[in-house]
């Protein structure tokens, strides 16, 4: 194999599994170390740099970082990264003097953002400090988009939402509430230098079955119903409630129903549990609240008697796994399940009835705008899309990253720079060596198990709609949990010409990830290392030829616990433990890092 190019920032970036998996590339290990030192405000500010909403995301993020966490491969459970982010937000002191501000002198450019959801808010966050005059148009009477309308307050308290949105709007953003944009043509005519569409995916899918029209008084579209609950337009529901669908919206619907008078709540799924879209922890939280999850039931009809919904009919299936692991469902009988209300949580899509077809904003086969995946620009220069409006429903952290990228594009566009000119990412590597066998990070492996999140008692939970269920980690819990982090950003950096091939690193490695062996191609090497490299998702580091024998040093990055023992046992410092910083560019800022 050719020797690995470790000068490309993406090589070491990929080793930091959590940061690599995070759409916004938040520097997780660094902020966990800051939490370990009790520097909650510093941890919060480091988070805010990339993900902008640490308090909100610390409660609601879909956590792509956690399934990626190396701890989950070495042990059973990953580090509770998401809940530690919340710790930084909850325990921090005042950061108001550290927040970005708008300059006194503006740059004369005006930008319109449609929708006050996370994507637009991030665009504002990045552009206002550069002197842009930013105007947000929002159909609802309050900002936040789905963070406010679709995420129930027992998961995300309003004060947390308001505080983090105010950090952006407080810089001086002109927000026009209760102002729905009805015509893109009219908006463009107002002469903005750029327009950003962050209108989300506001159209919930319906279920066209017999009886749907007759039952309409008691059949609700999930995201619309959640929005009505959020704004206080709905405060009750029937005793027996069926939720159709098993995504995360279904979980928010069933748990909200439990707080509005629902007594017997069933989530009806067409497939077995393994195929659910909801995050496992959201399913667990719902089941803890005595919500029943029924599998292998496909809705076939709404049953209405005398104009009143009585329930629904379902086709039952027996599921098994066929050849090549595919789901095989054998139909059984049709059953009737009584219900007073039905909530449809079958997914959602974006919709742009307000964008005229002749503006040069081209759409694809499904009416989706054609958006560049890197620049987020539509086919009309100066019009950008982001968040769910761009590529359909994802989650908040994706909308944040879209916002950052769109802001870079808008900044380019307004300066006459091609939007495709993306500022490159950089990296910084600094040795952590402090003494003979001392490092500037805690390299001692802590075998502690993942901390459990404490929940409010079931008895108290339903008293009010906005009783936050998760209590958050205590400082003591947080201190234990951060020590589970393996510090994957402290990289094993190898210098070929220093190696004397004494095998000390290979002998001491607890997870057998190092080998000195004759060179070969990747497939060949993977089979003949100290332990077979079984995870093709993870790279092999391959050195150049070693001085004494011409063999190569190979490291399988998969299971390295970054204990630094290879570097401690190395007599020539061919291995060193160096802290890696991914330097991420933002609008108006070259690649830099706030890490300290």
């Amino acid at each position: 194999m050719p020797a690995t190019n470790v000068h490309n920032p993406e090589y070491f970036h990929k080793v930091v599994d959590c940061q690599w998996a995070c759409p916004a590339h938040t520097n997780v290990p660094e902020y966990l170390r800051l939490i370990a030192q009790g520097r909650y405000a510093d941890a919060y500010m480091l988070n805010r740099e990339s993900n902008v909403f640490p308090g909100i995301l610390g409660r609601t993020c879909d956590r792509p970082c956690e399934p990626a966490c190396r701890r989950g491969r070495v042990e059973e459970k990953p580090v509770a990264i998401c809940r530690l982010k919340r710790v930084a937000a909850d325990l921090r002191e005042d950061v108001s003097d550290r927040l970005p501000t708008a300059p006194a002198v503006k740059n004369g450019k005006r930008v319109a953002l449609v929708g006050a959801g996370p994507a637009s808010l991030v665009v504002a966050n990045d552009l206002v400090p550069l002197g842009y005059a930013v105007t947000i148009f929002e159909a609802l009477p309050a900002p936040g988009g789905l963070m406010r309308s679709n995420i129930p307050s027992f998961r995300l308290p309003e004060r947390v939402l308001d505080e983090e949105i105010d950090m952006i709007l407080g810089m001086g953003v002109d927000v026009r509430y209760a102002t729905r944009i009805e015509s893109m043509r009219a908006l463009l005519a107002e002469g903005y230098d750029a327009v950003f569409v962050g209108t989300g995916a506001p159209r919930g899918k319906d279920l066209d079955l017999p009886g749907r029209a007759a039952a309409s008084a008691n059949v609700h579209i999930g995201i619309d119903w959640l929005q009505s609950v959020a704004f206080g337009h709905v405060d009750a529901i029937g005793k027996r409630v069926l939720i159709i669908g098993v995504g995360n919206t279904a979980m928010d619907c069933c748990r909200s129903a439990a707080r509005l008078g629902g007594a017997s709540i069933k989530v009806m799924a067409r497939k077995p549990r393994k195929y659910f879209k909801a995050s496992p922890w959201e399913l667990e939280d719902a089941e803890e609240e005595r919500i029943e999850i029924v599998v292998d039931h496909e809705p076939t009809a709404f049953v209405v008697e005398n104009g009143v919904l009585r329930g629904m009919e379902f086709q039952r299936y027996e599921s098994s796994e066929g050849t090549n692991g595919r789901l095989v469902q054998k139909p059984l009988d049709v059953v009737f399940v009584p219900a007073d209300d039905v909530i449809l949580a079958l997914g959602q899509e974006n919709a742009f009835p307000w964008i005229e077809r002749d503006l040069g904003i081209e759409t694809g086969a499904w009416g989706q705008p054609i958006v560049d995946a890197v620049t987020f620009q539509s086919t009309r220069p100066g019009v950008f899309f982001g968040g769910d409006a761009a590529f359909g429903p994802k989650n908040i952290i994706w909308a944040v990253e879209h916002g950052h990228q769109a802001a870079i594009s808008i900044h380019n566009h307004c300066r006459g720079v091609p939007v495709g000119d993306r500022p490159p990412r950089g990296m910084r590597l600094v040795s952590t060596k402090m003494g003979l066998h001392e490092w500037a990070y805690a390299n001692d492996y802590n075998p502690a198990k993942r901390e459990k999140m404490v929940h409010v008692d079931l008895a108290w939970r339903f008293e009010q709609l906005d009783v936050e269920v998760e209590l958050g980690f205590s400082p003591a819990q947080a201190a234990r949990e951060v020590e589970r982090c393996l510090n994957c950003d402290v990289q094993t950096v190898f210098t070929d010409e220093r190696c004397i091939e004494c095998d000390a690193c290979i002998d001491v490695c607890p997870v057998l990830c190092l080998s000195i062996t004759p060179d070969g191609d990747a497939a060949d090497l993977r089979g003949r290392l100290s332990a077979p490299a079984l995870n093709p998702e993870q790279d092999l580091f391959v050195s150049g030829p070693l001085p004494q024998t011409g063999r190569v040093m190979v490291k399988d990055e998969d299971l390295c616990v970054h204990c630094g023992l290879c570097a401690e046992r190395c007599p020539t410092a061919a291995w060193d433990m160096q802290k890696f910083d991914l330097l991420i560019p933002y609008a108006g800022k070259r690649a830099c890092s706030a890490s300290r």
Partner: protein
Amino acid sequence: MSYIKKPSARNPSLRPNALGLTVRDYEGAMSTLCAGCGHDSITAAITRAFYELDVAPHMVAKLSGIGCSSKTPTYFLSGAHGFNSAHGRMPAILTGASAANRDLIYIGVSGDGDSLSIGLGQMSHAIRRNVDALYVLENNGVYGLTKGQFSASADPGSRSKHGEPNTQQAIDPVLLALSLGATFVARSFSGDKGQLVPIVKAGLRHRGFALVDVISPCVTFNDHEGSTKSYRYTRGHQEPIVEADLVPPAAEITAEYAAGAAVDVRMHDGGIVRFTKIPEGYDPGDRDAVVAYLRAHQSTGAIPTGLLYLDPSGSEMHAANRTVATPLAQLPYESLCPGAAALDALQRAYR
């Protein structure tokens, strides 16, 4: 010296052996030797050999004397019995332990100082008695614990770290053992586990005294330009002249070899040591021929390595002395101490 313990995290692909143990269950404490010490690689080879032989750690006794090498039994098989003896006296302690309990597997770890200077007589007599043990001589040519003076195995003409040449003759433990009648003599290199692990396994299975002389560079005092026991020098001069592997008794022999390429030597337990490479005219069962070959070969500056001599038919200590098979600790008290009448009868026999 590392301050942390080796992380308990394990590679999930580690395979358990017949006892359900992984190679990590054969480890000991963290090494306190210098980073890069050859001894640590030998420790790793010993760890792997015991794992691959499915040996229960509590059925092993590990003994050593004094020196860097003699610290290493702490770093493998933490579940085994251990004895750290006075300088150079390990062979006597090992002989006594073996006499008292022949059920345990004995491994003595020593160095060139412990074995070739202060303990030369001790080692010689253990060889002469053919005590059933694996004796690993971790040979680096210097006294590392006392700052790197030449040891008895330092080659004449090789230089110290400060540049002075050695003017005295070297004791070669391999030729010495052959002349003393050793029944298993091997030489290897700490940087060549592919060769060392099979030799350690064969040595553990050999009934009798198995000497393995392992060139083990001292990274602090003897890994420099003028050294003949450095990593670079040993890599440049090591010549694996014979290749051998251990085939356990129950294993089916599937590999095929060209006629004449493989020579099998049957061990006491029914296992086989299979020589897959032997130079023409070399016979690992002919002591005089081996000595002659090594003398001729070494005079060219080469370091011949491999399982150099093997005689599984030699009579080991217990057979020669017709000792009782049961460990003394398990004999009934009346048998161990038959009483005054029996003593009187014995003494009368000498009058």
